[in-house]
């Protein structure tokens, strides 16, 4: 039985530990998965940001191309018509602009033609300062060789010779030998770039990310754009700027003035861009799951321990009760048989046999009363009927009834109870409590001791106590002994039969009277145990 219980306990403990292990493994796994998921989502969003930057770059480059293509065409046409005339002045430069396109015409400050071999530069329009001339003469041949896009037939340069910002667009014509020879172009105020980009990235027409990726997100709130030039100057900033880790940069093109497009996705939108939303951190949930599991395991182990303890106590209780019942029964049976069979040698023997039968029958009655009360209180149906009770006669009655049982161990009983002490109490309950305490005192105290019973009335409470001269109850155990089934370690396997419910019944009865019960040393002169019952008077 015990071995089975121990094994079952071990099995449950192992299962619980396994459960905890699995919970920990799950938690770790979930944590890692969430981390991976998040990292992946981050990667995807950064890719989206790169895509957005690339889209801005392409869009801007395209619009710039269309903005400068028409004036360059007009210049080329004028040159082909009259190769030896000066290039048309800006105001004479006529070209068509589609209605929805940005027109750079108002920003053009001068036009020019330059022979890349002889470095002969002719300009018409606004006066060109010397540094700008020098810069043009130095830059164009190099730019033509290194950056000029021969398939697009155009190049643009953003420069700031001497702090003077200049935006130049040009195309180059080949000579008869097919060598890039004559550059035709114009200079425009770089401030033209800002309205150009505003129009290019107008959210009515342009979205940072293609529609299939964005779901229902409005274009205007998707992210922000910054365009910078190679000098670090902001050419354009979108009206609203967001900050988020999802940002990227792309080059608009060295042939398009070496501008850079920066795109930043709005953090709040990131959620909507990932299917199923951005993974939330599951750490709090996982930690609470772990905590919960640990708490459950703790509770289970505690319950298991408590259950095994209770089972042991109950087993002890049953064997204790059966032992307690067997002893008086053995005597009743033996003496009644002895009498029935006429196996008595004298009148004195006959009388004593009868007295023992009577005494043991009383003991049994008391025991059964205790068990009954105990079972009633287990089912919570115990109740008392308090009435004004004079303690002195009640105590005397109990002593008279108990004296023979005490005398069997040579124990004498001494009582000092004030005659006028009357308390509202259930006489049956008081009798039961006293009998339990006397029984304990006689059972656990030494033979031939004097057990004293006393009562006092102080401050409206009556105290009834029973003191023995036994070994006393260790302080550490003075609360536990009131628990049902609990017996002192030293008594469990001793000769003293007990069920471990006597004191539990006393305390319950005291509680029913709204009183208390406790154990003390019994005063300075006393050795042993004194149990005090306090009843409101």
């Amino acid at each position, binding site marked *: 039985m015990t071995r089975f219980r121990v094994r079952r306990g071990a099995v449950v403990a192992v299962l619980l530990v396994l459960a905890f292990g699995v919970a920990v493994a799950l938690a770790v796994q979930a944590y890692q998965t969430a981390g991976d998921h998040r990292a992946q989502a981050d990667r995807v969003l950064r890719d989206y940001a790169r895509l957005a930057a690339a889209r801005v770059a392409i869009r801007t480059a395209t619009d710039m191309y269309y903005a400068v293509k028409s004036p360059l065409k007009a210049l080329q046409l004028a040159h082909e018509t009259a190769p030896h005339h000066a290039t048309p002045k800006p105001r004479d430069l006529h070209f068509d602009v589609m209605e929805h396109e940005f027109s750079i015409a108002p920003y053009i400050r001068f036009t020019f033609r330059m022979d890349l071999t002889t470095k002969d530069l002719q300009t018409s329009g606004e006066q060109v300062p010397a540094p700008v001339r020098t810069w043009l003469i130095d830059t164009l041949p190099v730019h033509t060789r290194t950056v000029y896009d021969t398939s697009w037939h155009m190049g643009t340069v953003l420069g700031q010779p001497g702090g003077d910002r200049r935006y130049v667009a040009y195309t180059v014509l080949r000579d008869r030998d097919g060598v890039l020879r004559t550059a035709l172009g114009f200079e425009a105020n770089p401030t033209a770039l800002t309205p150009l980009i505003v129009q290019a990235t107008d959210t009515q027409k342009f979205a940072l990310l293609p529609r299939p990726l964005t779901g229902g997100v409005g274009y205007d709130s998707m992210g922000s754009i910054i365009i910078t030039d190679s000098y670090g100057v902001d050419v354009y900033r979108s009206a609203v700027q967001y900050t988020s880790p999802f940002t990227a940069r792309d080059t608009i093109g060295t042939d398009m003035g070496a501008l850079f497009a920066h795109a930043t996705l709005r953090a709040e939108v990131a959620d909507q861009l990932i299917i199923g939303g951005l993974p939330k951190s599951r750490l709090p949930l996982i930690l609470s799951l772990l905590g919960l599991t640990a708490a459950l395991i703790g509770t289970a182990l505690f319950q298991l321990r408590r259950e095994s303890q209770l089972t042991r106590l109950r087993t002890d209780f049953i064997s204790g009760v059966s*032992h307690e019942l*067997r002893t008086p029964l*053995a005597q009743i049976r*033996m003496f009644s048989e002895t009498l029935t069979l006429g196996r*008595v040698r004298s009148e004195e023997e006959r009388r*004593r046999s009868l007295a*023992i039968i009577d*005494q043991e029958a009383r003991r049994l009655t008391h025991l059964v009363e205790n068990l009954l009360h105990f079972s009633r209180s287990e089912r919570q149906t115990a109740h008392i009927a308090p009435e004004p009770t004079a303690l002195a006669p009640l105590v005397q009655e109990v002593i008279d009834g108990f004296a023979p049982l005490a005398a069997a161990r040579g124990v004498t009983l001494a009582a000092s109870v004030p005659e006028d002490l009357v308390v509202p109490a259930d006489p049956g309950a008081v009798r039961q409590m006293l009998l339990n305490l006397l029984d304990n005192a006689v059972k656990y105290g030494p033979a031939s001791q004097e057990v004293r019973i006393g009562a006092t009335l102080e401050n409206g409470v009556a105290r009834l106590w029973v003191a023995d001269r036994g070994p006393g109850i260790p302080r550490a155990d003075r609360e536990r002994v009131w628990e049902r089934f609990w017996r002192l370690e030293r008594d469990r396997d001793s*000769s003293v039969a007990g069920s471990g419910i006597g004191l539990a019944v006393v305390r319950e009865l005291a509680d029913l009277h709204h009183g208390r019960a406790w154990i003390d040393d019994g005063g300075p002169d006393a050795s042993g145990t004194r149990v005090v019952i306090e009843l409101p008077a």
Partner: protein
Amino acid sequence: MIAPATGPKRILVIEDNPDLAYGLRNNLEIEGYEVEVAKDGTRGLSRARTANPDLVVLDLMLPGMDGFRVLRALREDGHGMPVLILTARGEEADKVRGLRLGADDYVTKPFGVLELLARIEALLRRVVAPKKNGGPPRSSATSKYSRRRGRCYATARRSP
């Protein structure tokens, strides 16, 4: 060491309950035994050693030294007189333990007076019997407990 064959059989009752001891004494005396009562294990053991009774009636739950320890001490000393355990402990494990320690019989309380007397008489008869063969009138009780069958075999055997 050997009780005189002519005198009354002497029985030692080791029992802490004075009323029960009183009843046992009366009943045994009526049967013609000479009865001595010991109130606890320690006294019981010393009386069993010095007085060497023909039979011991032994309670298990005794103050001081419990019945099992008394029995073991007796057997370890080489005392072979029959021992009848008379106890309120009715669990099989207790019976097995008592018999394995060398008890010759086990009676649980409550018990019938006549049955108890008959068992005592039977135990005493068994001890006397080997005397005819000239061997010492001592019995050493051993028992084998078969865990597999869950049964208990008690055998009384002449000591060498």
